[in-house]
């Protein structure tokens, strides 16, 4: 009985990690690191987490965790509340609805898929911010952030895949 309790707690802790990693990436994303000195924007790390876990472990990243990650992103980044929450949820929903397409595909296809989802997310974000400010917001920084996000995806996805193999095999 005791062992089974420990076992269950262990399992629970492991299964919480996709949501926790997503939230952690929101926080890591705003830490002022100047490795990319040439750029004032940083890649949108939590979007990668949402994409990855929605494909591989959707049950372990429920919609409300996605919502919370987006809300935290809004709060910390100073974006209007709800914008990133909406963007992340839409990205999540799109990936879930195309689950059949994503299963068993090579990494290159997954990367391409991410490029599409991130493009949708960036467009939606731009639209929402433009609408809320009642003006067409400058788009160049958004394009730049999009390119950075797509460019950094393989590195982050590699870490997630490792994590998944190490801790989430039982799912």
């Amino acid at each position, binding site marked *: 009985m005791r062992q089974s309790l420990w076992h269950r707690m262990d399992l629970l802790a492991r299964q919480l990690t996709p949501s926790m990693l997503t939230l952690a990436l929101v926080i890591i994303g705003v830490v002022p690191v100047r490795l990319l000195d040439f750029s004032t924007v940083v890649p949108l790390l939590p979007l990668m987490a949402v994409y990855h876990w929605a494909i591989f472990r959707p049950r372990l990243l429920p919609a409300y965790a996605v919502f919370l990650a987006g809300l935290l992103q809004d709060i910390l980044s*100073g974006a*209007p509340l*709800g*914008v990133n929450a909406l963007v992340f*949820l839409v990205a999540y929903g799109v990936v879930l609805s195309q689950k059949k397409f994503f299963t068993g595909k090579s990494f290159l296809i997954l990367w391409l898929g991410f490029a599409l989802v991130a493009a949708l997310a960036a467009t939606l974000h731009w639209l929402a911010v433009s609408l809320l400010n009642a003006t067409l*917001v*400058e788009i160049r920084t958004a394009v730049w952030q999009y390119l950075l996000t797509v460019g950094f995806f393989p590195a982050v996805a590699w870490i997630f895949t490792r994590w998944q193999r190490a801790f989430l095999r039982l799912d």
Partner: protein
Amino acid sequence: MKRGPGTQRLSQPIRGLASRFAYAGLVAVAIGLMVLGKIDVLMTDSFRAQVTDAVAPVLDALSRPAEAMNRAVDQVRELSQLRQENARLRDNQGRLLQWQTAARNLEAENKALRELLNFKTGPEPSFITARVIADTGGAFAHSLILNAGSREGVVRGQAAVTGLGLAGRVAGVGARSARILLVTDLNSRIPVVVGDTRTRAIMAGNNTNQPKLIHLPSGESVQIGDRVVTSGHGGALPPGLPVGQVTMVNENGIKVRPFVERTRLEFIRLLDFGLAGILEGPTLRKAPKARKGSRKRKP
């Protein structure tokens, strides 16, 4: 997230329906929040400040090693350019010495003239120095989070400056954290005066690193290279803080390059001139009074 055993027994269509409802509900909440943020700015701001406060210790801890790393990167970079840098600095020094002489002369002259006129100088600023613990790096919001809040005496509306000039102003305050809205943010509007003609204008952020000058009086001319300083109109910011330099004048508008670069911000100084300012609305009860002196935290 682990689901209870009961959930698994639910038949597939019902579960699908329920999760779809939950999803739609969350999307609706997100949209509702966007609308609410437009309607009730104060409430969303205080919510934001509270959550930021809760996360601030984590950010503070994380930003310290990040800073050490930044410094190491900088040092390597500087090492490679030591020789040119030296030559440039020597060059600069000669020029600066001339300027120093000029400034001293002007200072003395100014002082004498002020005495003649019985001129009253503005209130002396008190300041709080704080560390940047989050640079949000978003494409659509230019703001920073500092590790000082109302406990340290930070008040909404204070000017955030570095040694180079104005960086932004305090847009939200929690107990131990504060949010700075940078001058480049879409929502930033700074009353400024431009050049020797002291043309009045508003510097409006547009999410690029070059804000625009708007609302210039007709017939006034602005030239490339003109210095832009705060005007102090509206009482929101103290007058005379250096902001930037005009870099482009054409039919598309006038652009300013701020002296303060966003990627280079580590410490920020918050100036408090005790100005009530236009930001002190009726709902913001805490007036900047009863301050027990400012705290210095510069390294």
